[in-house]
């Protein structure tokens, strides 16, 4: 295979991964690392490096649109980035300590968890009772546009959400993914933030979280430009296409099919990691 053929094949695969990732809300990163590692035989360190770069591109591109529409809560994002960036630094250091096989096993487990999370009921019951004093002090409560006018919401259980974000950041730094599924879990499930605000604010935070481990990845040589180039461009174009299709379709069937694929890929990663074939 020549460089040109390799580049085109990886770009095509990344485009499909980015498209499916955007359409299902799971993000391109969870697909791109297994694709590179299992199909193209790329070492897992290069795979997570290329994935991390693509995560920054798609998150920043999409965040621009969501912020403009008024769904993103910039204060919640900024506050929780304290946790995700610290977690990401820890995760990136951890990636240098454990073997490629170990990373593959953790990755497989995270894939299984992501598939489970993507299938769960998405609307947490609205928050009731006394306002959370930390949320009030930090002015985290907000409102978002709905067809019936602005809808206000209160933020709950801030310490729990913060702790979960430390964990989400660590996974991002360790695996080169955005870990959007875990960020959304922390916000909509723990902190009772409306789902649409949770997903868009998660997206807003992913770029900064990934940037926190990028410097360490560069220094360690995880980011190979010849590989990162087709991955970044392919995922970026794919996710833009996916976001465009998403406004016209409610891809329920696709979500289920994709979740099953993720489960199969996750088990493959765990198996290959445990038998030392990665």
């Amino acid at each position: 295979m020549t460089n040109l053929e390799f580049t085109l094949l990886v770009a095509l695969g990344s485009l499909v991964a980015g498209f499916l990732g955007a359409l299902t809300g799971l993000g391109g990163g969870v697909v791109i690392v297994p694709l590179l590692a299992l199909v193209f035989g790329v070492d897992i360190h290069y795979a997570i490096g290329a994935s991390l770069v693509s995560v920054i591109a798609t998150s920043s591109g999409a965040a621009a649109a969501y912020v403009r529409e008024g769904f993103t809560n910039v204060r919640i994002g900024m506050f929780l980035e304290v946790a995700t960036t610290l977690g990401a630094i820890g995760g990136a250091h951890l990636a240098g300590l454990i073997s490629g096989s170990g990373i593959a096993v953790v990755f497989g487990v995270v894939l299984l968890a992501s598939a489970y999370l993507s299938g769960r009921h998405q609307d947490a019951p609205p928050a009731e009772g006394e306002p959370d004093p930390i949320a009030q002090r930090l002015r985290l409560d907000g409102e978002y546009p709905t067809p019936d006018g602005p809808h206000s919401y209160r933020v709950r259980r801030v310490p729990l959400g913060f702790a979960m974000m430390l964990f989400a950041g660590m996974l991002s730094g360790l695996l080169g993914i955005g870990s959007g599924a875990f960020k959304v879990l922390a916000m909509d499930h723990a902190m009772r933030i409306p789902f649409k605000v949770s997903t868009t604010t998660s997206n807003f935070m992913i770029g900064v979280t990934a940037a926190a481990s990028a410097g360490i990845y560069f220094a360690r040589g995880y980011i190979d430009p010849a590989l990162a180039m087709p991955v970044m461009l392919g995922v970026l174009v794919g996710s833009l296409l996916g976001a465009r299709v998403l406004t016209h379709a409610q891809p329920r069937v696709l979500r289920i099919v994709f979740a099953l694929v993720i489960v199969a890929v996750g088990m493959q990663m765990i198996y290959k990691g445990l038998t030392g074939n990665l």
Partner: protein
Amino acid sequence: MDTPYEANFEQLLAKLLRAGVLLSAGVVCLGAILYLINAGGADAREHKVFKKEQPADLRTVEAVVTSALRLDGLAVIEVGLFLLVATPVARVAFSVYGFLRERDWVYVAMTLFVLAVLLYSLFFDAAH
């Protein structure tokens, strides 16, 4: 709830993010063309085994910039990737200014902390 100033500022943040991604994607595309013209026909680079070190012309920021100015494709791609990583960092730096304008000291401190964490990573040296 957002003040009008805050809402305006958020629109500026959105523009900054979009511009950063477009600029870096453009530079990466340019690097890709240079790289594929020069090395497209050669046997594919080895990615199966992780080499702890980058080639010498990509190891430091100075070396990357020098090679990029000589229009070395991979170095130009690397510059595009630096710009991409710099985009969220610039967003955070810009947010410090936004919260300063609002005299929201708790958020100024928080944002400065996140900026410090990002800079720690960017200046991290694997040799230590």
